């Protein structure tokens, strides 16, 4: 997606901030929530979009479906 950023992505390499339990929240939207800039991917008003969640060398919990990501939920 052409959103004005160099890469429209967040990865373990880009250094997102983890929650206390080790989970990671990713934010999508035209503006970053305050303090969540490292966990944010900018989207563009007027355009639909979709994300890919990539697993490089996935392990057992991916295949047996015991590890599952949340749906994307709309924020107030």
């Amino acid at each position, binding site marked *: 997606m052409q959103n*004005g950023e160099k890469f429209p992505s967040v990865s373990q390499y880009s250094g997102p901030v983890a929650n206390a339990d080790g989970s990671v929240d990713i934010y999508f939207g*035209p503006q970053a929530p305050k303090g969540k800039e490292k966990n944010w991917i900018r989207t*563009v*008003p*007027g*355009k*639909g979009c979709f994300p890919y969640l990539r697993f490089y060398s996935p392990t057992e919990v991916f295949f047996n479906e015991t590890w599952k990501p949340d749906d994307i939920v709309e924020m107030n």
Partner: protein
Amino acid sequence: MKTQTEKTKAQEQNPPETVDTRLGPLEFTHDFANGYPTDETVERLYDERDFQRACQAYIWSLPAVSFTAWQRGITKELGARNGQIVAILSLEARRGILTANATTPYYLGFADLSAGPLIMVIPPQGVQGGISDAWQRTIPGTESPGTYLVVAPGQKVPDDVAGYSVRQSPNFNIFLGARLTDPDPAKAKEALEQLQMYPYAQRDNPPKAEILDVGTKEWSGLPPRGMEYWERLDDVIQREPLEPQDTYFHAMLRPLGLEKGKPFKPDTRQTKILTEAALVGEAMAKANSADRRFAGGKYRSDAHWDFALQLDADDPDAFWNLLDERASWFYEAVGAGPAMAPKRPGPSSAYLGAYKDKAGKWLDGGTSYRLRVPPNPPIKLFWSVTVYDVDTRALILNEQKIADRSSRMDLHKNDDGSVDIYCGPKAPAGFEKNWIPTVPGKNWFAYFRFYQPTEAYFDRSWPLPDFEQV
């Protein structure tokens, strides 16, 4: 960065878009390129996808569904046992077959090989026959006299095949068609008594060859309409192997509930789509047969007569990949082989079809027409004109029980040797013998048959004019 910001602002103004298409309005959350289809539009797109696929599946499946419907009529309605030869001689019985001729006797049988290989005997004299598979393709090497052992896919050829010519069928259901060639009735009868099909397992004690004479019983071997069409297609999908060239058709039918190894239980949505597609698919097939739009379809440019069978006798296998040409024949007819689309003189027959009159109007049962058959018809045996109902594509049903006129009959001839055939609700005075009665309120079409056509047919120097309104 500035331009980027301006662009972003412009895109904020990107409102939902509705695109008008042949499917009706398609609604998107933004414009078509940037938006997703709305929930309602997604439903519409899936319904339309499945509907289009089902219409095309109708056109694709005609040879196999027609075969299965025919086999079902012979076994379930007429009660023929597996492999039994059936005699179809009367006009009433012939009306169960797509564009049957009204002249030559039909001896035919269907066999299911799923229980094991089958023996087929074509006697050395008096019968010309051959077998075709469940898609109505001729099985190579079955057309001369002999004792054949027919083996289905996955079946082991028995160890002892002495005395048999082994033939491999590409699928499990086959059809034997035969024609008597001996003019002597006693010899013809003798030949018929030797014509048979029975399971290899019964080779030591074969069943008595009893021909089932249908008499004047009315029955139907015609492809059905509505959901029954898809039920017959499901028979084909369940019984026969999936052939590589049909892979995508099978894939396209899966969302419609038609899948090998699974019971066909269409839900409300699938039933609605399939019911409509059986009608639209047939309407497309009707147009594809009655108004052919592929190259080389016409006998001559000065009249509407079409070659009914677009098979190249020098490359008959190629015909089975010509989707539209194949459908144009199998919507209205059965069986296809080189001897039905000859390119040079020999023991064959040729078929022309007419659907429109000289003025380009559809042939109609309430209108009277004359067809002038010019002198010196290019045939060694005989010619015939046969009239068919558009509804059934079978011999026309009229009170007089007359569906054809042929050069074998006592017809009134003109002084120059031409023959006028009249088709209409009433016979013109003095031409009763040349008349085929038609029925007001129904369209019809005609086949002109050449039995053993000669050179003037092949070089197309013999003209066959159109039906003309009188």
